[in-house]
């Protein structure tokens, strides 16, 4: 069965303030969807709510992955079901080496009795790190501690690569990346494209989409998807910005719950 990820009428609030006001989106295996939009329109809230961050309360709607109700699941269960979120601001965990963490995460995903052997793990990790042009020393560094912005992003992609998820959400993976890092990260993502895997790429710069070619582009404003189209929509946004959409839709302030949104 091919992967099918369905978001219907998703509403979510933070501290009682509604940020997502009914999101509808369907992603099938093999597809890349991009969500674009200015800052403060609810894009990152969507990413966090999908993964189940405790700060966000889902008030309505449904999210299913291959027919399974994701919203009923705890964060770790969602991950084990095949959802992956590459975070905009990954946490730092002192004292835990990157490789120990990666192996624990891989084994959690693979399930008890199906743990990866140490040798296989090291081989796999090292080859993926090479693809991402990461210094091998990062395997032994503490998880994200003292990593630069770009190193953290590469580390997120590394996790995505070894965890082999069904649905990947990339939350502003391009922020803080120079052009070389952007290319490497994008190549990492592209190498993971498959018929079994769907992607949701959240960004407010079109440039990422020069490297990761989307099949569908959605524009988010005021906590809703206000416009959808093909790759040409991203190109138009690059050229003309967002104002024409606002004009077209009669939107004055595109943001939602501004004081809470970073």
């Amino acid at each position, binding site marked *: 069965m091919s992967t099918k990820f369905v978001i219907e009428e998703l509403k979510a609030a933070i501290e009682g303030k509604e940020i997502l006001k009914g999101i509808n989106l369907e992603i099938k295996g093999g597809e890349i969807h991009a969500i674009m939009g200015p800052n403060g329109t609810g894009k990152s809230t969507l990413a966090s709510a999908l993964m189940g961050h405790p700060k966000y309360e889902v008030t309505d709607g449904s999210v299913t992955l291959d027919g399974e109700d994701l919203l009923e699941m705890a964060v*770790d269960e969602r991950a084990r079901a095949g959802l992956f979120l590459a975070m905009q601001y990954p946490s730092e965990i002192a*004292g835990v080496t990157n490789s120990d963490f990666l192996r*624990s995460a891989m084994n959690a995903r693979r399930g008890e009795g199906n743990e990866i052997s140490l040798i296989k793990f090291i081989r796999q990790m090292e080859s993926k790190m090479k693809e991402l042009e990461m210094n091998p020393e990062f395997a032994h560094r503490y998880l994200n501690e003292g990593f630069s912005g770009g190193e953290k992003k590469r580390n997120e992609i590394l996790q995505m690569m070894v965890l082999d998820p069904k649905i990947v959400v990339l939350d502003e993976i391009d922020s803080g990346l120079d052009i070389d890092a952007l290319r490497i990260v994008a190549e990492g993502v592209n190498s993971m494209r498959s018929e079994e895997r769907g992607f949701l790429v959240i960004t407010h710069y079109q440039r990422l989409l020069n490297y990761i070619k989307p099949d569908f582009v959605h524009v988010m404003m005021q906590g809703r998807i206000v416009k959808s189209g093909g790759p040409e929509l991203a190109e138009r946004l690059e050229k003309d910005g967002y104002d024409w959409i606002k004009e077209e839709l009669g939107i004055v302030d595109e943001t939602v719950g501004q004081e809470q949104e970073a």
Partner: protein
Amino acid sequence: MAKKAPEMEEYKYGFRDEHKAVFQTGKGLTPEIVTEISRIKNEPEWMLEYRLKALKQFEKMPLPNWGGDLSELDFNDIQYYVRPSEKQGKTWEEVPAEIKETFDKLGIPEAEQKFLAGVSAQYESEVVYHNMQEDLEKQGVIFMDTDTALREHPEILREYFGTIIPPADNKFAALNSAVWSGGSFIYVPKGVKCEVPLQAYFRINSENMGQFERTLIIADEDSFVHYVEGCTAPIYSTNSLHSAVVEIIVKKNARVRYTTIQNWAPNIYNLVTKRAVAEENANMEWVDGNIGSKLTMKYPAVILKGRGAKGSVLSIAVAGKNQHQDAGAKMIHLAPDTTSTIVSKSISKHGGKVSYRGLASFGRQAEGAKSNIKCDTLILDNESTSDTIPYNEIMNDNVTLEHEATVSKVSEDQLFYLMSRGLTEAEATQMIVMGFIEPFTKELPMEYAVEMNRLIKFEMEGSIG
């Protein structure tokens, strides 16, 4: 992922042997009992006198009015001496089978024991087995239980015993001086570096029995030794007292590392005095892990007596339900250019209480001395508490003292991050805790690091609701 039930794991250390002591004193403490202890051990007269004097000191000293709650401690309800068997095993074969079983239950493989440099295992009040690697003997290193040392090296004992921690130092040092039994004695001759750590496993195994081991280490000039003690205690229903005294002399250019991991049953009072003197350019390192017990009061100290001496304490304390870890360190800078480092990591959970109590003291001669203190506390829930109580005494203007303290909770974002990669909340919390104490575990010898990680995992099981 399915895990074994926490109760089962806790019980792993809760077994008890049907072990018959060959001799034991009744409960309570009198000059007669002290005399009896000394007599049974065939001690020289001076040691008996020392004990009796210490007993008088003990009786006249008040309990400390700071630190933990000692009000439930009843000195008359404690048995002060138990001797497990007629004689010490000289070889592994001679060690009583029942005691070997205990080691097996503790999960110490025999092969590993043979690998160890010299295993001095204190079982109940006395060391029943120790075996010293021939290499050490050839180098002139003395490693034996303190009772044997008193018989075989009385002149060294008489010269150093009680010189770092006199009975009058505190009530529990006085108690130990009166009734001590067992412990390790180590002498490392000039220039000798012991490459393999010397180790002792010990545990308390008689209900209501105090354990009063006495350890004395002398590292002569330019020498090095690493001593390791580890402990997993059975679970008992009534209070039990452990009160050890550890004295260490680190001579010029010598280095001593003393590593302890103690995992006491939750009813044990663990009141220990540990102190070292570091002479010129000597280096003393305490690595101290305190898990469990009802109350631990322990402040490893280094007196930095010679120019350029270094001292360090690296400690972790874990307090759970009904537990109080009042632990810390003391650094006494008495000479120029002395340096000290204290790194204290505390974890409290299930309503447990951790206190860091530390002293950084700089005497008039401590020109150019430096001390760096870092205390980090991780609190796992809202019922648990922590305190940081630093004391500083500065008699010289030209010193550097840095003190940094952090208190943190396991953050929501960190948990979310780890869980978003498939780890359960328990696994994620455990990973954060293990990371928190990593600066400690990485300093342990491999087999202890493994044991430490296992203990912390047991401790963390069921910590999450």
